[in-house]
């Protein structure tokens, strides 16, 4: 294990920030009294460069958030490897895990749940600074102040003593971003950071995230179910369905030239798509995630389905530079 990671470390190109290979997460369930497993994330691979935004798109239950949690090591991967800056962090524990989390932070979907209701803004941001950057006293206060200022929460002195319930959703999300920035991370996982905010302030948050990206050369895994924001914010888009990657492509290529039937369905379901009439699907059933399932998870809903779809996993076809699609019929 150790030696193999060293070998691949030598093989990799040097600017890959995050490399995920064949990641599998499984959860136990009870199926008619028997223990069975579901795989919300099934053999997913991707890479993210420094300063790059990978947008992860998919419907509810497609495994987007589970990938995020596995990356942050909140859930334990069943198999596969996660390499960050060349280190295989898949099974790190204890002190090494704490060190790892200095580099990787998360912005949560729900700005109301991600802040402790009985703690001030200052408390949320000060703790990671004390813990990881060993700041105290004046230096700590100043650093909290400059972080608050950086995320646009001014006047700073007024904001730092406030409690979460005194802030709006957008302001809370900015506090959460400041907290994530406090440890000076290399990589941010943003799990639907704007989906619970007012439409009018979404662009502001995305703009802030984008500024921070270029300022700190941050890599992002941007999770969303909104193709429009994925296109606006993401350099590349990865479409997920039933725990499997359907299609990966540079954002504009994916929007202009969607190749997978599921991607086309997603685009057709977007308001303003120009599609008039029923969606190109044969069912709207949720995919089966049970372990041992064969074939493409989208087969039940796919208008182009052939026999092979239900029996064999689709091959990954490379259409152009960076555009890959997993489908039998493309």
């Amino acid at each position, binding site marked *: 294990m150790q030696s193999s990671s060293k070998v691949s470390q030598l093989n990799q190109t040097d600017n890959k920030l995050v490399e995920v290979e064949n990641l599998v997460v499984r959860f136990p369930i009870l199926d008619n009294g028997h223990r069975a497993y579901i795989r919300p994330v099934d053999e997913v691979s991707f890479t993210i460069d420094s300063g790059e935004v990978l947008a992860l798109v998919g419907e509810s239950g497609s495994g987007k958030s589970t990938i995020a949690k596995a990356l942050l090591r909140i859930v334990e991967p069943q198999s596969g490897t996660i390499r960050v800056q060349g280190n295989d962090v898949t099974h790190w524990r204890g002190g090494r895990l704490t060190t790892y*989390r200095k580099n990787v932070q*998360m912005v949560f979907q729900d700005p109301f*749940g*991600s*802040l*402790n209701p009985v*703690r001030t803004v200052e408390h949320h941001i000060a*703790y990671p600074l004390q813990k*990881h950057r060993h700041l105290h006293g004046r230096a700590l206060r100043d650093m909290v102040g400059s972080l608050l200022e950086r995320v646009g929460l001014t006047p700073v002195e007024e904001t730092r003593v406030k409690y979460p319930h005194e802030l709006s959703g957008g302001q809370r999300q900015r506090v959460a971003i400041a907290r994530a920035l406090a*440890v000076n991370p290399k990589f941010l996982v943003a799990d639907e950071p704007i989906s619970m905010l007012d439409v009018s302030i979404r662009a502001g948050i995305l703009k802030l995230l984008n500024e921070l990206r270029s300022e700190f050369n941050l890599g992002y895994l941007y999770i969303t179910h909104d193709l429009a924001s994925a296109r606006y914010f993401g350099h590349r888009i990865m479409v997920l369905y039933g725990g499997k990657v359907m299609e990966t492509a540079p954002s504009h290529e994916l929007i202009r030239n969607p190749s997978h039937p599921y991607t086309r369905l997603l685009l057709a379901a977007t308001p303003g798509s120009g599609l008039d009439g029923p969606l190109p699907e044969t069912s709207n059933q949720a995919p089966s995630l049970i372990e041992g399932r064969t074939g493409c998870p989208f087969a039940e809903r796919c208008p182009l389905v052939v026999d092979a779809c239900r029996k064999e996993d689709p091959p990954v076809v490379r259409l152009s530079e960076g555009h890959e699609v997993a489908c039998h019929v493309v």
Partner: protein
Amino acid sequence: MSRAAVGKMPRAGLTRVKRNSKFSAFLTNPKALTGVIIFAIFTLTAILAPVIAPYNPAATTFLPMLPPSAVHWFGTTNTGQDIFSQFIWGTRTSMEVGIEAAVISTLIAFLIGGYAGLMGGWLDALLNSFSNILLVLPTLALLLVIESFVHNPTPQFNGLTIAFTSWAWGARVFRSLALSLAQRDFIVAARLSGAGSIRILFSEILPNMTSVLASNLIYSFLGAVLFEAGLAVLGFENVSTYSLGTILYWAQNGGAMMEGAWWWFVPPGLAIAVLGTSLILMNFAIDQITNPRLREQKRQRKANKRTGRDSGVNQQPSA
């Protein structure tokens, strides 16, 4: 005045109102106020016992079995001790034991229950089954077994044993609260910030449980006072100390019932009952203030009353 200052003022004002409201709700609640006043009297008595008590409680210098009088407010015992002095010192002991047991048992309950709920998994199963076992053991029987191994335990020692045998209910409550909090994003975020479990328990979870903590403190205080009195009456306490329980013990042994010396056993018994009532009242009030459903009912009742009166005066139905 600058624009920023003007913008700041109403907000700060609002905040202050909001933060005071819980505290003032507690004091304007009649139940809570009654409870607090009674409890304050007991606390003052306990603190000022050496000043209030007119005589040495152990001195046998008076005539035996005197009924209450201006000299001996609660009369004297069959050995000529002043019962009022004993009562004051006894109150002090009982309050001490109550505070001691309440603090210790709440701390144990929070540590075990909170940690189990936060960590989950096998640790939770282990700690939870441990508290369940303690929960099904009858506490009094357990106490009696422990006490039978100890020679002349002091009230303070009894407080300790009570604390160590009665934390299980609290642990269950803290566990279920911690379970629900542990899934919240801010706990995950704290973990990602590098906080360890103990820090999360005390810094993130504890401040979210203050009302339950207060109510648990009050209930274990009450339980401890009752158990301590019970143990003392049964003779499982050093009988040369003065607690409300030992006074009852001596009243029983000194034949207070047969002699009709009601002044000997009524005051300590009544004191325990009144102290218990004050604690229950305060707990009701905490419940009412922190449980929105109870508050809702009250508001609704008020609203009903108002609409009922209004409809009597104003017959026009509002659209």
